[in-house]
């Protein structure tokens, strides 16, 4: 494994009542975070491929951690998202190198299918920095009920030379969605949009 992982933190939340109204079935969301050493910290490195390969490993590992926390089969997953927080001795481009070139393939493989863009967020930050991981339906980006975000943080990370990498997976949209738009049962699931 290329990634040197210091810790893995998984948060799963399950909402059964919102504003006094039952959420049935309860919405369930998970976000898995890995705290890794940043092998490119402290200096300018032109070729960031070492981080891109780390993205492949973590795409698989963190997606499976989410499925395990949700206790669902891959085909039951509905939305996803990804994010990274780079410690201050790194640069924002390091997050991009992990998240964008190759991470999507193992995420989609772990979920069997996922034709929509995986929404993402990134930032620089110190220990305890929170990031709001954006969520979108995995097979049709326009499904309005599944636009959401999940806050992730690790209290003692990232240190200066670390990166926090997060992947979020859900089995549902927002609690009691009711603003219309494309519904999940209307998805064609071919072009990633509708």
């Amino acid at each position, binding site marked *: 494994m290329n990634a040197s*992982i*210091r*810790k*893995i*933190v*998984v*948060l*799963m*939340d*399950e*909402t*059964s*009542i*919102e504003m006094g109204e039952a959420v049935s079935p309860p919405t369930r969301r998970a976000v898995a975070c890995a705290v890794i050493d940043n092998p490119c910290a402290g200096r300018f490195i032109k070729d960031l491929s070492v981080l891109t390969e780390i993205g492949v490993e973590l795409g698989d590992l963190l997606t499976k951690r989410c499925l395990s*926390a949700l206790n669902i089969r891959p085909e039951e997953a509905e939305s996803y998202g990804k994010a990274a927080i780079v410690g201050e001795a790194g640069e924002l481009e390091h997050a991009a190198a992990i998240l964008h070139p190759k991470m999507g393939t193992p995420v989609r493989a772990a979920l069997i299918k996922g034709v929509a863009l995986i929404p993402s967020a990134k930032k620089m930050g110190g220990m*305890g920095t*929170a990031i709001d991981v954006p969520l979108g339906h995995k097979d049709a980006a326009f499904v309005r009920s599944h636009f959401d975000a*999940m*806050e992730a943080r690790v*209290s003692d990370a990232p*240190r200066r030379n670390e990166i926090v990498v997060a992947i979020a997976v859900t089995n549902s949209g927002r609690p009691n969605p009711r603003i219309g738009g494309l519904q999940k049962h209307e998805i064609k699931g071919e072009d990633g949009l509708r």
Partner: protein
Amino acid sequence: MSSLIEIRRIATITEEIMRETGPAPGHVLRRAAVLAVLTNPFAGRYEPNILPMMEALKAPGLEMAKRCIAALGGDPKAVAGYGKGAIVGEGGELEHGALWHVPGGYAMRELLGDAKAIVPSTKKVGGPGTRLDVPITHINASYVRSHFDAMEVGVPGHPRADELVFVLVMTTGARIHERVGGLQPADIKVWDGQR
């Protein structure tokens, strides 16, 4: 379920810690927290008799403790440290958080085979997103130095003014790289919950 108990949301946090800044010790420390967001039936008024809720919290306490053990892999024997806490939304009072002492503590001690040590705790009144550092000690002897720890937890968006967040935390062992001496688990002899 009692009318005093309305669970709106449950969040489970698990951590696997391989190392700190030093060399990996070769085992993984696991920590888990279960946070339940409940309606505070006493929010917005002074209610002199809040004790019925303490009784009503026993069942959800057991359910949360089971979830916490499950989050650590399912074996109660693997649990070595514990702690608990409460965050009261702004429409409530600190005393409402104190309702968690008995049901939260006894639920864990029961499921962990009559654990001896008092369950360390913390509580506060706070707004949505408030974080809580839940203290952790060894389940059988409070003075075991290697197991003194704390886990920062919270539920984004909660507690609202009319909510309570109750927390249970369990761990599988000592701090990673523990090396400040003191009482070790193998040296527990008195079995009074302290040493």
